[in-house]
């Protein structure tokens, strides 16, 4: 057994996780705003507020992970089409700027130092341009790792999809957490509507995630020796329980069950979505921690894998 060095540690894991939350919060905010800006205005506003913050913290962490943080500007002296990291660093810079401008348009009037002209126009332009950039931020983190042939554990195109849908789900869960902890001003009816929106969206996202994990596991068993050996890290190896109990059971299946319990009756019978802040906090925290664990297992597990002759 070869000795493997972990060069990308917790800072990178945290960054991948925080960038995902931001991308997810931005996308959810834009969806909410364009589906029904009145009914979901709290989601749209909260999502817009949240979006630029975690990713900015994540980028700061990433800087500390560099060997020469002060030379980070070298990233912006070129654009390398073949390097996911180069494309990603440009996406991040654009995303943070668009996210900050869009958040500003949602500020209460009293907070606004500068009055923006055509504020409504800016809000929709940033939504329209920001949406593909946010999706890009969500998906590129998966491509960043998935494009590395030398690390068989990462080397599947499904990783990009898994990271994207996990990013969206952790973003929705963050908004769910905030809405549950801080019942925003407004009638109970609108809170219930917001809850239903977030839960239904998240149920779809978690289901997609599960249907991405299944083929990853199945295909690995039908693939080359390098990939079969590399997946051992979650099938009997060091991260088996962390992945199956932490990420899959408590990070996906349990919150999915809670969310279905809350939202499913409202779809089949003429009843209201259950509105229980405790369940909301519980399921959203599980999803957020699960999303972190997923990135931890993938980041570390990949570095423990290598090609086999």
């Amino acid at each position, binding site marked *: 057994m*070869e000795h493997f060095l972990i*060069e*990308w540690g917790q800072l990178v894991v945290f960054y991948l996780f925080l960038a995902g939350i931001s991308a997810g919060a931005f996308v959810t905010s834009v969806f909410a705003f364009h589906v029904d800006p009145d009914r979901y205005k709290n989601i749209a506003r909260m999502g817009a507020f949240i979006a630029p913050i975690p990713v900015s913290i994540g980028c700061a962490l990433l800087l500390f*992970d*560099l*060997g*020469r*943080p002060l*030379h*980070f500007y*070298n*990233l912006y*002296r*070129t654009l*390398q089409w*073949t*390097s*996911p*990291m*180069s494309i990603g*660093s440009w996406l991040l810079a654009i995303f943070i700027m668009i996210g900050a401008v869009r958040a500003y348009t949602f500020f209460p009037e009293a907070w606004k130092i500068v009055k923006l002209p055509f504020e409504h126009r800016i809000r929709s332009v940033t939504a329209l341009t920001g949406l593909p950039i946010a999706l890009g931020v969500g998906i590129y983190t998966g491509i*960043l*790792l998935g*494009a*590395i*042939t*030398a*690390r068989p554990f990462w080397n599947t195109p499904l990783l990009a999809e898994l990271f994207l849908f996990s990013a969206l789900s952790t973003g929705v869960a963050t908004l769910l957490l905030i809405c549950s902890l801080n019942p925003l001003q407004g009638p109970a009816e609108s809170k219930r509507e917001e809850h239903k929106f977030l839960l239904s969206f998240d149920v779809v996202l978690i289901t997609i995630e599960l249907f991405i994990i299944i083929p990853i596991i199945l295909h690995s068993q039908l693939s*080359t020796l*390098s990939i079969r050996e590399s997946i051992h890290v979650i099938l009997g190896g060091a991260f088996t329980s962390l992945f199956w109990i932490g990420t899959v059971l408590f990070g996906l299946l349990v919150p999915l069950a809670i969310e279905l319990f809350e939202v499913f009756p409202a779809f089949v019978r003429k009843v209201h979505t259950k509105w229980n802040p405790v369940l909301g906090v519980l399921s959203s925290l599980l999803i957020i921690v699960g999303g972190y664990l997923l990135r931890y297992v993938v980041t570390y597990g*990949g*570095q423990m894998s*290598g*090609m086999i*002759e």
Partner: protein
Amino acid sequence: MKEQHQKRYVFVIEISKCIDCKACMVGCMAENQVPVEHSRNWVHQKGPNGVFPDLGMSFEPGNCMHCENPPCERVCPTRATYKRDDGIVLVNKDRCIGCKYCMMACPYNARYFDEKKGVVDKCTFCVHRVTAGLDTSCVHTCMTGARHFGDIKDSNSEVSRLLATHEHHVKLAAAGSGPAMYYIY
């Protein structure tokens, strides 16, 4: 007029000659001032295989394979890693920011992170020696003649003749990187 052809430097290793003395590693560290906790080249032990008394063991020296299609160069976000026309893959220390993405991408784990300088480093094909007309430090130090280097485009070079007359392999051909290090068994 003599036609100037484009050189393409490669390594050729005769596995059967390597005795695992590790002089190539020591020579490289001294020549290139490699930090003691790292090494730019290695000797991998293969085996022992078989059942006593029929046992076999071999040693595979290696270093950066100076690939034709280097995965490290492809993923570098700052163009710090680049490939010269003669095939030598180098790291421009001024551009490197120490993100270590290239270390993830190298199928041979040929790169290391220099904590002191905050940049990634690796075998330079002793470019300072080779351009001065000398052999690389590891080839120079190898006392059994297991290591060879030369221009594969020159059909009269030692490496070309070795490759023409011996069956040879490259490591992890499936990676598609086109390593310029050929092993003769």
